[in-house]
């Protein structure tokens, strides 16, 4: 990992030094346990704060949508393959201009969660060595996605009756406190005014009561259908430990099955809810 760290610092120093970018978004050592923290580096001297290790879990692409990064003419960003999927989503939806963002891709053998376990996204990873970037650091890491890993969490859910599923989700969603960490940390929740914050009319009640929570979590998952790149940032951030990725992955599975689409693969494709085919599945419409 240290060579990756050195590689990132070197490119950041160069870009910041020659004015290629105004700033570089990367990870630095955090203050709590072994956590890392996103950091905005503005001078070549500060570049030595940047690092890469297996605790670089945050998807930094979320900073592209907010100030001060959003307003910058040119910005460098350090990214794992999975993070770059989010960039591809943002490009598809015209939220960033490719020329403005310089990507320092880092090959990644996988990261570890706070509790030391390996996230599903790493077990299912097909982009250990990124293919979409401006510069890349780290030696090549071959991808060998574990078959079935991506949707394995859905099996238990599928096995339940609808009533059991409903009870399961009531139990989970009632916990929601509407801190919106899921939304704020998500690189693809791009609305400047979330539907949950629009009150004329108030489609999604903001109250963290069961009804409001059910609507909110449902709408969040729906609005990410075909867009979520499964970076797991939402689930990682959730302070009440709602298994949000179950919903996101259920949507990913639907989109794959119904439209043969996977988010974050190709900036030239149309997200599925922005297009249609004449021969889309019609079997469920009576």
């Amino acid at each position, binding site marked *: 990992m240290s060579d990756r760290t050195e590689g990132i610092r070197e490119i950041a120093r160069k870009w910041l030094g020659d004015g290629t970018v105004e700033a570089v978004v990367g990870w630095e050592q955090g*203050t709590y346990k072994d956590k890392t923290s996103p950091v905005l580096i503005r001078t070549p001297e500060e570049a030595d704060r940047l690092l890469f290790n297996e605790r670089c879990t945050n998807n930094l692409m979320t900073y592209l949508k907010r100030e001060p990064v959003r307003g910058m003419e040119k910005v460098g960003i350090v990214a794992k393959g999975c993070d770059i999927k989010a960039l591809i989503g943002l490009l598809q939806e015209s939220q960033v201009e490719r020329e403005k963002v310089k990507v320092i891709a880092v090959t990644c053998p996988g990261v570890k969660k706070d509790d030391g376990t390996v996230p599903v996204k790493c077990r299912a990873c097909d982009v250990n060595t990124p293919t979409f970037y401006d510069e890349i650091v780290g030696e090549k890491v071959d991808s060998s996605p574990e078959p079935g890993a991506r949707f394995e969490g859905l099996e238990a859910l599928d096995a339940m009756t609808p009533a059991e599923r409903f009870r399961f989700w009531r139990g989970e969603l009632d916990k929601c406190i509407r*801190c919106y960490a899921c939304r*704020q940390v998500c690189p693809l929740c791009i609305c400047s005014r979330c539907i949950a914050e629009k009150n004329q009319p108030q489609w999604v009640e903001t109250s963290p009561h069961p009804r409001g929570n059910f609507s909110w979590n449902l709408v969040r998952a729906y609005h990410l259908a075909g867009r979520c790149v499964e970076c797991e940032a939402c689930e990682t951030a959730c302070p009440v430990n709602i298994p949000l990725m179950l919903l996101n992955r259920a949507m990913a599975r639907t989109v794959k099955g119904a439209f043969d689409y996977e988010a974050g693969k190709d900036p030239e494709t149309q997200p599925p809810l922005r297009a249609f085919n004449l021969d889309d599945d019609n079997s469920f419409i009576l």
Partner: protein
Amino acid sequence: MPYMTLDRTDLPSLAEALAGRGKRLVLPVREGPELFYREGADPAQLDLSTIPKNSIKEFLFPKSEKILEYEYTGNDVVIDDVDPDAGPAVIFCARPCDAASLPVVEPLWNWDYKDKFFNERRAQTLVVTYACRTAPDDACFCVSVGLSPSSDQGSDVLLYPVDDTRVAVRLVSPAGRELEEVFSGFKKGEVSEESLDAFAKEGEQSLADRKRLDKVKNWLEGHFEDPLWEEKASRCIGCGTCTFLCPTCHCFDIQDESVFDGGCRLKNWDGCQFSLFTLHTSGHNPRDTQPKRYRQRILHKYSIYPEKFGRILCTGCGRCVAHCPVNLSLYDVVSTAQERAEKGE
């Protein structure tokens, strides 16, 4: 004066005995990798291994609470007051930093307006606190704000886990002392006052490297505009994790929810890190960037609130440090302020 001790294994039974019939019982239990205070959980599942992820705030100031109802009849409207649904409750094995949050926020709920919802709950809630022998988490910094791992502030009863098997009992408040009988029923032995002092010392010792934050207030008052805010808080994503996990954050929002002919008014948690928190109808937002919002949070906790109510609005529980999705550490920010104040910067 000696203090009675109980067997640690008797804690679940004690919890049940305290709750008795009809009292709501809140205690920490494990859910996945973390602990949470939960109401109605099985006392046998009591887990004291670390500090829970949520604070006890939600049991006195629920995340959503109905405060009135209204109904239209023809073109008139009838408003009905609503009483808090607040039966007697026992919060069992709260951490000292959680218990200490109660006296911190009480003046707020009883300032220009006496909030009957908080007050009624507070009056009916017994807080039995479980002192920390050593800091349960790297994020803890209670000593920095004048508290300690065995602080009795806000507690009715303080339990000291003096060793692996015994728990000493100190009845702190009058309400706590009224329960002597219940506790005596579990009495197994005694410890001296000195051993509790030693316990407290051990706890404070475990946080010896934490800074006292006594100069932060002054520093903040002179550094409203400072590069520190941008440097630390440009990473803030503006979620409500820190404010909602915080035992002392108390902001709320009022929402009306209506159907065809009426509805109700709710008081819901709100947080100063949301961009909408200060958004005016005109579209103007006086705190228009995340660093400004973050500064406000620190200022409120360490300067404005102390100015008004004489107490720092923080008990050093460290939840905002440990659970921030982007690892933006409040302790890091305020201790930096302290350091700079000490250096005269």
